[in-house]
């Protein structure tokens, strides 16, 4: 579920309608797409970062934050609300959330990318369908159930929360990596072997660079998933912004609930925006129009 954001069109609206027929755009990098587009797909080729893309999201998010801040400071808070929001609690929860996301994303990448590479090597290729099937079942597993089971097994705390978040995100990133490496034209690999490159050489110089777009899409997926799953860490005593949301719901204090939710939303969108910028900047030059 990599939310993919096609770049903003710079052309006026009507120009893409040719006599009432769906217009096929060949001009700026869009290619005819097959009717079946898997939802976990490489981000479609798009223009390099434009200034609108660079500015729009942060400005909107900053405005939302400012509005929330002004609202929170101007309403009367009762003692329960003060308890939830004072003494740096908000900053603490925010920081915990960022830490949970960062640490779990790190582990997801450290686990998923090497395993993905290993699964596409010749010796292990037979295991790959098993992993894909596992990934499908994993997708059906509710994150909250997984986390609750881990809490019962390992006890509460941030460590359990991180293990749960990692376990939930590893499979999508893994299947993304495998798909990316499998999508590479086998003739390219053969040609590389043919000119005398070693297997590790082919991997490092041909396969991995070609798989970069899909792997980056996987990183972005992991980040966005992890920001979301980290809100559930509060149910395992892992802290994070979910703490504000749940205490808002339990104590029926709307300002706490809204502040927690708004901060989570802003954090999620900010992380997604950063990842999308990184994705476009790090995509190898020659690969802008590739599978």
């Amino acid at each position, binding site marked *: 579920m990599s939310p993919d954001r096609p770049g903003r*069109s710079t052309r006026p609206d009507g120009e893409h309608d040719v006599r009432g*027929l769906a*217009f096929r755009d060949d001009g700026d990098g869009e290619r005819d797409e097959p009717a079946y*587009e898997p939802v976990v797909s490489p981000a479609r080729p798009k223009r390099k970062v434009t200034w609108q893309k660079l500015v729009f999201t942060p400005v909107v998010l900053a405005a939302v934050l400012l509005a929330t801040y002004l609202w929170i400071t101007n309403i009367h808070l009762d003692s329960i609300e003060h308890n939830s929001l004072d003494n740096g609690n908000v900053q603490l929860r925010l920081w915990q959330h960022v830490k949970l996301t960062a640490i779990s994303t790190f582990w997801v990448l450290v686990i998923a990318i090497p395993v993905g590479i290993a699964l596409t090597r010749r010796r292990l290729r037979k295991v790959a369908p098993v992993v894909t099937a596992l990934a499908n079942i994993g997708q059906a597993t*509710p994150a909250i159930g997984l986390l609750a089971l881990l809490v019962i097994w390992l006890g509460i705390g941030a460590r359990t929360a991180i293990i749960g978040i990692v376990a939930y995100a590893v499979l999508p990133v893994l299947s993304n990596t495998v798909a990316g490496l499998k999508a590479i034209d086998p003739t390219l690999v053969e040609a590389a072997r043919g000119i005398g490159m070693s297997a590790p050489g082919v991997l490092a110089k041909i396969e991995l660079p070609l798989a970069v777009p899909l792997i980056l899409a996987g990183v972005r997926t992991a980040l966005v998933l992890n920001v979301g799953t980290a*809100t559930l860490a509060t149910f395992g005593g892992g802290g994070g912004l979910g703490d504000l*949301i*749940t205490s808002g719901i339990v104590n029926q204090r709307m300002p706490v*609930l809204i502040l927690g939710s708004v901060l989570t939303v802003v954090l999620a969108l900010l992380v997604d925006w950063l990842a999308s910028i990184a994705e476009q900047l790090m995509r190898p030059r020659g690969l802008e129009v590739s599978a």
Partner: protein
Amino acid sequence: MSFWQYLSNRHQQLLTDAFQHASAVFQCMVLATVIGVLIGVLTYRSDWAGNLAVTSTATILTIPSLALIGLLIPVLGLGVPPTVTALTLYGLLPIVRNAIVGLRGVDPALVDAAKGIGMSRAARLLRVELPLAWPPILTGIRVATQMLMGIAAVAAYASGPGLGNEIFRGIASLGSANALNEVLSGTLGIIVLALLFDAVYVGIGRLTIPRGIRA
């Protein structure tokens, strides 16, 4: 109490929860499909509007479920309304995106031919374009359903219906004899439901995808 004993003792409650879970997801999926396909049909012709539709639904999907439900509670209260709203919103993205991709992927020559034999705009859409775009839309529906199964579990925290209640009951009674049974029955129940739905979608695909365009 062993897990099997727990299941047979509580099967009434569990079946009710499972039924409510499935029915909530199913109803929200119907709603999301109707809205999503409608958005797709309205926007796929314009590059600009299509991109806007995909970008805005993608933004909704980026928002963590607990936070979206949290934002809906002050407006809609606890219980069913925020659950249904959140589930429908989350279900939109895969459907909208696949509807737009599918409709844009229809060979213009076919649409032209349909026009040439005198089909009206609505007939072209209903009898040529949508049937050809149906396989990716169905894929979108499958993906969305899997996702909603898990999100519905979180919605139970806002007093929503379904198997999530079992999981939260287990979390609330950590350390008690039945905590594991409760969490396990809720989690496994959701997985089973998700797999059942998936099997049903495969069947729907067999029945509704025209023979000529089956992959």
